[in-house]
C-alpha cells in the first residue's frame, strides 16, 4: 500500500464515519424504513440484522444512493445531506457487495477486480487508445494493486477465468475483491455468506476480519447466520418492520427482550 493511501485509511478511530439521522423511506403505502437513526464508526464491524422484510437492504441502498429517503439526513465523513448519489458514494469511498452476486459475467476475474479501480483512472480515452502517456503506467499500477487483492483473497489461480464459469463461493469472493479494489473506507456487505457451506463461511469470516485489519475499512454487514454475526461484529443494529428495535454490543442485543420477541415470537 502506498503511504498516501495508508494515510487515507488511518481515519480517526473515534467519532463516526457515517450517521443516519431519523431516516425514513416508503414506497407508496409501504414504509420500508421508519425514522432509523444509527451510526458507523471507522474500522468497526457493524452488523444489521432483522427478519425478512425488515428494511436491512433498504438501509444499505440508502447509504450507497440507490434510494432517496423522504426524510432524514445522511452524514458521511462529516458532510450532512439528504441524499447521496451512487457516484458520490463511490467517490467518497463506499463499496458494496450484493445479496445476489452482481459481477460482470462476461469479464475475467482480473477485469472484474480491475473495474473496481475505474475511479482511480486519470488517463483520457485518447491516451488509452494510443497507449501513450499515463495510460500504460496507470494500467500496470492498477494491475499490481489488483494482484495484491488476488493474493489476499487466495484467488490467483482464477485470474483469467470468466467469472460466469466460477462456482458460487468463488464468485462471492471475486465480488469482495472488486469492492476492496476501490480502497473503501466503508464496505457494505449484503449477506456475504448466504448459500455458503461451513468451510466457505469460515473463509469469508476470516476475510472480513482481515479486511478490517489490513485495509482498515469500516464494515456494515447484513447476515442471517446469528452465530457469525455475534462472533464478528462490534455492534449490532436490529431492525423490524423498518424500525430500529435494538442497537448495541452483541451480548446486549442477545438478551434484549424486543429482539427475542422479533426473532422467536412472543406472547402479547
Amino acid at each position, binding site marked *: 500500500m502506498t503511504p498516501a493511501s495508508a494515510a487515507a485509511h488511518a481515519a480517526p478511530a473515534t467519532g463516526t464515519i457515517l450517521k443516519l439521522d431519523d431516516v425514513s423511506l416508503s414506497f407508496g403505502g409501504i414504509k420500508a424504513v421508519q425514522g432509523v437513526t444509527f451510526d458507523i464508526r471507522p474500522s468497526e464491524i457493524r452488523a444489521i440484522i432483522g427478519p425478512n422484510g425488515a428494511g436491512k437492504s433498504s438501509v444499505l441502498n440508502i447509504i450507497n444512493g440507490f434510494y432517496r429517503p423522504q426524510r432524514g439526513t445522511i452524514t458521511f465523513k462529516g458532510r450532512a445531506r439528504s441524499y447521496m448519489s451512487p457516484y458520490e458514494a463511490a467517490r467518497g469511498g463506499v463499496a458494496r457487495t450484493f445479496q445476489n452476486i452482481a459481477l460482470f459475467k462476461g469479464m475475467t476475474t482480473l477485469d472484474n477486480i480491475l473495474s473496481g479501480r475505474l475511479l482511480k483512472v486519470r488517463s483520457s480515452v485518447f491516451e488509452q*487508445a494510443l497507449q501513450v502517456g499515463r495510460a500504460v503506467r496507470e494500467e500496470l499500477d492498477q494491475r499490481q494493486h489488483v494482484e495484491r487483492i488476488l493474493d489476499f483473497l487466495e484467488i490467483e489461480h482464477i485470474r483469467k477465468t470468466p467469472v460466469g464459469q466460477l462456482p458460487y463461493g468463488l464468485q462471492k469472493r471475486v465480488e469482495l475483491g472488486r469492492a476492496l479494489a476501490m480502497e473503501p473506507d466503508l464496505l457494505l456487505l449484503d449477506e456475504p455468506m448466504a448459500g455458503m457451506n461451513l468451510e466457505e463461511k469460515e473463509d469469508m469470516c476470516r476475510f472480513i476480519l482481515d479486511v478490517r485489519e489490513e485495509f482498515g475499512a469500516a464494515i456494515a454487514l447484513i447476515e442471517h447466520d446469528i452465530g457469525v454475526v455475534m462472533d464478528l461484529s462490534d455492534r449490532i443494529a436490529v431492525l423490524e418492520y423498518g424500525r430500529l428495535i435494538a442497537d448495541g454490543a452483541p451480548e446486549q442485543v442477545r438478551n434484549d427482550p424486543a429482539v427475542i420477541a422479533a426473532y422467536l415470537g412472543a406472547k402479547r
Partner: protein
Amino acid sequence: MFYRDSGLIKTTYKADRAIFPVDQDRWAIVALVGLAFLVPAVASEYWLSSILIPFFIFSVAAIGLNILVGYAGLLSLGTGGFMAVGAFAAYNFAIRIPELNIIVVLILAGLVSAGVGIIFGLPSLRIKGFYLAVATLASQFFIEWLFVRVPWFTNYSTSGVISAPAVQIFGYDMSGAAQRYLIVLAMTVAVAVTAKNMVRSAIGRSWMAIRDMDVAAEIIGVRPLRTKLVAFAVSSFYCGLAGAMWVFFYIGTVEPQAFDLNRSFQILFMVIIGGLGTIVGCFFGAAFVILLPILLDNLFALLGTGGHADLLSHAQMAIYGALIIILLIKEPHGMAKMWQIFRQRMRIWPFPY
C-alpha cells in the same frame, strides 16, 4: 505441436497484458500485416478494388458497431446513418476546403460523425435493448432524409449522386487501386489497434461493466451517461471513417442510398456472425458477409451455368443463407469463438489432451 505456450512465462505485467501474449501469434500477425501491405505487387485491379478495399472498409464499420453492441451492449440499427454522416462530411470538407490533406478530412469526418452519434446516443440513458434499437432506427431514417432533402449537403447537385473529388496526398495522385488499397489498409490497421487498446483499458472495462450489470457499474463509480456517450462517439467515429473511405477509396460517389437500412443490417450481421465483443471477429464477419458470396459466385461460374443462370443464382443465395444458419447453430458466439477453440486445440495437437 508447433504452437505451444507451455514454458512461456511472463515476468512482467506489461508482457502479460500484451495484445498477443504468445510469441507465435505475434510473429504470425506481423507477417500477415506485412504480407497485406505487399499484396498490391501481385493482386489484380479487380481484387484490390472490388474485394479487398470493401472488405477492409466493412471491417472498420464492423469494429465501430461492435464497440457499441458487443462491448457497451447498446443495440444500434443506425450504422448506415453514421456512415452517411462521415461520407457527406468528408465530401463537404473536401470540396469546401480543398487544401485539406485527405487524412485530415477523414479524421474531421469521423469527428463530425462522433458528434452526431453523441446526439443520437442521448436516449440510451433511459432506453435499452430492442427499444434502443428502434430509437437508433429513427436516426437512420432521419439522416437519410436529411441528405436527400437538404441540397446544401450535396452541394446543390441535381442528380443526388455526386462524384468525390480526386484524392492527393502531398501531391501524389492516390486514385490508383494500389494506392487506394494501401491507404485503406493503413487506416484499418490504425482502427483495429486503437480499438483493441481501448477495449483492454479502463474505458473498455467501463463499457463492459455497463453491458453486463449496469447497477453494479454505478456503485463502482461508472457514470452511465458519460460511458454510453463515449461508446456512441467512438463507434460513430469509426463508422464515419468507414463511410468517408467508402466515398473516396471505394465507390467514388456520394449517395444516401448507399447507406440505407440494409447497410445497417449488413454490418450488424457481420458483428453477430463474427462474434460480439471481439475485434478479430469483425474481420471474420466482414469476410463472411463480403467474400463468401463472391466465392460462391466464382465457384458456380467455374461449374458453368448450363443454361439455368437464374436457378443457379437462387441456389447460391440458398446456400449462403444455409451457411449462416449452420454457423450460428454450431457456434452462437460467432467465428471469433470458433477461432479461439481452434487455437486451443492446436496447442495440444496431435494429442487429445
